[in-house]
C-alpha cells in the first residue's frame, strides 16, 4: 500500500507550477496568474457549481423520471409551453457548452504544441462551438408547436 507522505504533498510535479503562488497554501493546483486564465479558472468553478444543479435536475427529469420511451415531440411541446423550462434549458445549454468549450480549449493548449495547429484547432473549436450555441438557442427561443390534429 502506498502511503501518501505528508512532506511530498506540497511538491508540484511541474517545476514551473511549483513556483506559482497558492500551491502551498491550499494544496490545490496553482491558480493561473494571467488575467484570462484566471477568469477561465474561476469560470470553470462557478459554471461547474451551477451545472451541478442544472445538469443533474435535467438528467433526473429527462432520464430517470421520464425516459426516451415517453419523450416525443409532444413532450417537448408541452415542456416548452412554459417559459420557465425554456429559460432553464437555455441556461443549461449556454453553461454546459461554454464550460465544455473552455475545457476543450485547455486540452488543445495542453496537447497541441505546434503554433499553427493550435491556432487552427482553437479557431475550429470556437467556430463550431458558437454555431451550436446559436442553433440551440434558436430552437429553444423560437420553437412554435405544430397543431397535432393527426397525432395519435
Amino acid at each position: 500500500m502506498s502511503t501518501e507522505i505528508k512532506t511530498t504533498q506540497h511538491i508540484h510535479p511541474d517545476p514551473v507550477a511549483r513556483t506559482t503562488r497558492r500551491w502551498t497554501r491550499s494544496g490545490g493546483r496553482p491558480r493561473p496568474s494571467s488575467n484570462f486564465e484566471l477568469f477561465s479558472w474561476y469560470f470553470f468553478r462557478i459554471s461547474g457549481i451551477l451545472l451541478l444543479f442544472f445538469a443533474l435536475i435535467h438528467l433526473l427529469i429527462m432520464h430517470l423520471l421520464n425516459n426516451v420511451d415517453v419523450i416525443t415531440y409532444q413532450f417537448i411541446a408541452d415542456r416548452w409551453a412554459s417559459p420557465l423550462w425554456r429559460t432553464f434549458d437555455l441556461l443549461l445549454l449556454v453553461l454546459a457548452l461554454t464550460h465544455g468549450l473552455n475545457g476543450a480549449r485547455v486540452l488543445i493548449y495542453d496537447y497541441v504544441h505546434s503554433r499553427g495547429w493550435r491556432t487552427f484547432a482553437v479557431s475550429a473549436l470556437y467556430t463550431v462551438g458558437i454555431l451550436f450555441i446559436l442553433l440551440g438557442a434558436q430552437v429553444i427561443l423560437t420553437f412554435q408547436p405544430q397543431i397535432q390534429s393527426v397525432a395519435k
Partner: protein
Amino acid sequence: MYRGQSGMWLWILHRLTGVGILGFLFLHIADTYLVGFGATYYNELLFLYKNPPFRVLEWLLVGAVLYHGFNGVRVILMDFWDKAVDHHKTLVQITVVAFFLVWLPAGFFMLKPVFFS
C-alpha cells in the same frame, strides 16, 4: 497524492468524461434542433435512442456527468478549503462512494424498463 496515485487517475477520468460529455452535447443539440422541423422529423429520429445499446450508453453518459460533477466538487474543495489537502484520501473515497451510490441505483431504474419490462 498526484503522480501515479489516486489524484492522477481521477484527473485523467475527469478529462475523459469531460470530452465525452462535450461530444454528446453536440449530438444532443443537433437532435433537439430537429424539433423545430416538426413532429415527424423529431419522432422519427428518436427511434435511435430507444435501442437497448443506446439505453446502456445513456446510462454511461449519466455516469460520466455524475463522476465529472462529483469529482468537480472535490477539486473545488481542494482549491478553496485549506484543510482539504489533509483529508485528500477521505475526499477521494467520498467521491467514489457517492458516485456509485447514485449511479448504480440510477442504472437500475433507467435500465429496468429496457430489459425487464
